[in-house]
């Protein structure tokens, strides 16, 4: 199966061939590296930008204005914080010009902890991102969704932020991407650049097919009746693992992979909470003014009287960074045990 990084690459290739992608660019996105996570290796429209995030986002906006279809990258979301004003401009150009211009661009950036990334390779960005209007925000938890969300992002005529969970970049999918070779070694030989000299290397692209994960549609990964767990990205897997553990102990958790964070699939979440009466939201962004608090608030708006226990947020500790030593990360970023514990608490809480 393709890894998440390969899935992104295949999607970008499909985008170049069929969806009008004109420029894939950012720091080290072009040859020879093809991205620090190899997501852009071998792509025909990929190029290396100057080391200037402001230039990257602004140039993407200009390309979009001029009829191009850019997919720009911020190398790590940890380095996106000097362009928030530009993201806002991308997001408000359509509204402020009352529909005169729109901004068909994709911005992708790796997010989250889990790779011993220390203070500046561990940031999450969904809380700020969802607070910026005019953007759609997606975040896959597996390779096939990454492929399907990227195609939807490219096809969307609005700015779409594609958050790639960096801890999952090398994780293999469980389902084939349509058109992906059966044998993953074959895929590797076809599209992964060789180690060493790459001067003459060319990828051989498999004939991947159109496959979309619609923006705004969550996926229920585990059916359950005792508690609704809303997660996404890397921690989604800890949620399903936790659910599996608790299943053995007789607690039945329904796990929802949000996939799109803005606009998030409110109806699926509400329906599940109405059924279970309990809600846990899990992410690894810091906990103050956290996107998960928004999910909880919306559930309160619509399902308060269905709730049998306080909805809970498990999120990153409110500290200035994720420290490098494991003792820091373990104690500031939610771990499996924390999620199990929180799920149990919510499922069993009684007045």
């Amino acid at each position, binding site marked *: 199966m393709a890894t998440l990084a390969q899935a992104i690459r295949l999607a970008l290739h499909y985008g170049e061939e069929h969806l009008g992608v004109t420029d894939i660019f950012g720091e080290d996105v072009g040859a020879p590296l093809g991205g620090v996570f190899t997501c852009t290796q071998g792509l025909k429209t990929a190029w290396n930008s100057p080391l200037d995030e402001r230039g990257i986002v602004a140039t993407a906006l200009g390309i979009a204005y*001029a009829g191009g279809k850019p997919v720009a990258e911020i190398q790590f979301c940890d380095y996106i914080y000097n362009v928030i004003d530009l993201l806002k401009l991308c997001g408000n150009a359509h509204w402020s*010009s009352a529909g005169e211009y729109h901004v068909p661009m994709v911005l992708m950036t790796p997010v989250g902890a889990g790779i011993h990334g220390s203070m500046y390779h561990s940031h999450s960005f969904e809380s700020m991102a969802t607070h910026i209007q005019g953007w759609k925000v997606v975040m896959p938890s597996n390779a096939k969704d990454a492929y399907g969300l990227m195609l939807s992002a490219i096809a969307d005529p609005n700015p779409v932020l594609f958050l790639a969970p960096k801890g999952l970049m090398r994780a293999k999918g469980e389902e084939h991407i349509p058109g992906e070779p059966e044998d993953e070694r074959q895929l590797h030989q076809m599209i992964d650049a060789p180690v060493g000299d790459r001067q003459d290397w060319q990828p051989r692209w498999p004939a991947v097919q159109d496959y979309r994960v619609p923006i705004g549609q969550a996926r229920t990964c585990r059916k359950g009746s005792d508690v609704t767990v809303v997660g996404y990205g890397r921690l989604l897997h800890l949620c399903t693992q936790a659910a599996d553990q608790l299943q053995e102990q007789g607690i039945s958790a329904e796990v929802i992979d949000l996939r799109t964070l803005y606009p998030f699939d409110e109806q699926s979440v509400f329906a599940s909470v109405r059924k279970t009466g309990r809600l846990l939201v899990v992410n690894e962004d810091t906990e103050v003014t956290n996107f998960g608090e928004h999910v909880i608030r919306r559930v309160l708006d619509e399902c308060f009287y269905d709730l049998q226990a306080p909805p809970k947020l498990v999120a990153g500790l409110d500290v200035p960074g994720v420290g490098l030593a494991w003792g820091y990360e373990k104690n500031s970023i939610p771990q499996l045990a924390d999620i199990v514990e929180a799920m149990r608490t919510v499922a069993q809480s009684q007045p």
Partner: protein
Amino acid sequence: MALSGSPELTRWTPPVLDEACKLAIHNLMVKSRACEEALIRMVRTGHGYFWIGSPGEEGFGVPLGMLVHKGHGPAFDYLHLHYRSAPTVLAMGSQPIDLLRQMRSTVTDPYSKGRNFVNHFAIKPWNIVPVTPTIETQYAVAPGTALVQRRHGGVGISIVTGGDAGSAEGDFYSAMNWSTRPDQELPVLMLIAHNGYGISTRAERVQNTRELNRRGDGFGIRNAMVDGNDPIATWNALVEAMDYVRHERKPYILQGNVSRLYGHSSSSGASLLDEPDCLSLYEARLLREGLATAAELKAVWDRWHDALNDALHQVIEEPMPDRQHVLQHVFWDGPAGN
């Protein structure tokens, strides 16, 4: 009078600066000045909240608007404009009434449907991308449109305008850097309208040179400075700069020194200040050179004043946005390409 071109151009020939053209310049300068003065009056009489604009920049902005290669798509010029660009946009052919609409924030405001302050244009048929209230960000965006133009071929360029104070933002530097990548030079014409101030802060207190175009020296970018109060000098400087950018497909920085006749904005009172007035200077010249009589010049003013009066009467009858308009245009669901 703005000249619009054909998408197939491979060589650009500037219009001839003959007598008719010189009078056209005057007409457009008056058009712009009269329009801005009408806007100021609107704020004073409660027909708008806030004014910011361009009186004192007509000598620099009008020739620009007349020299733009006007049209839609990368064969034509893209404009990334500062909020003092009425002279340019009016010279390109836009109607003063639309600025009055934006000032009054009516639903009929074609640039923002009553959302933005006046002088924040967005005109897709002419490649005028949305004017942003954020100073200098337009500089960083311009290489993006220019990159598409570089690939497209032809003579279309990306024109970006800004103030003197704003050139302190790193985005000016980004523009210089991104348009000079080796073998990837971009056709960006960077214009600085130097009025000596950023709001209340005098340029000479915060910048070590009056010639901000010289910042381009650090990138080897060709640059020049011109008296922006002189539309003829500006015309010639622009022709030279455009010729280079259009045909060499490389960046160029041109600074025009201008006046800020009514101060920064209505926040600082918008009353007439004692600075050189490009328009009266130009009228004196037209008279001196015998290109027009005083009566002819006055007739131009009268015509625009009348037109603006009519426009104002029309605009104040037009509807204002309400609840139903708030959620319009958050997302676009039509086809992707601009």
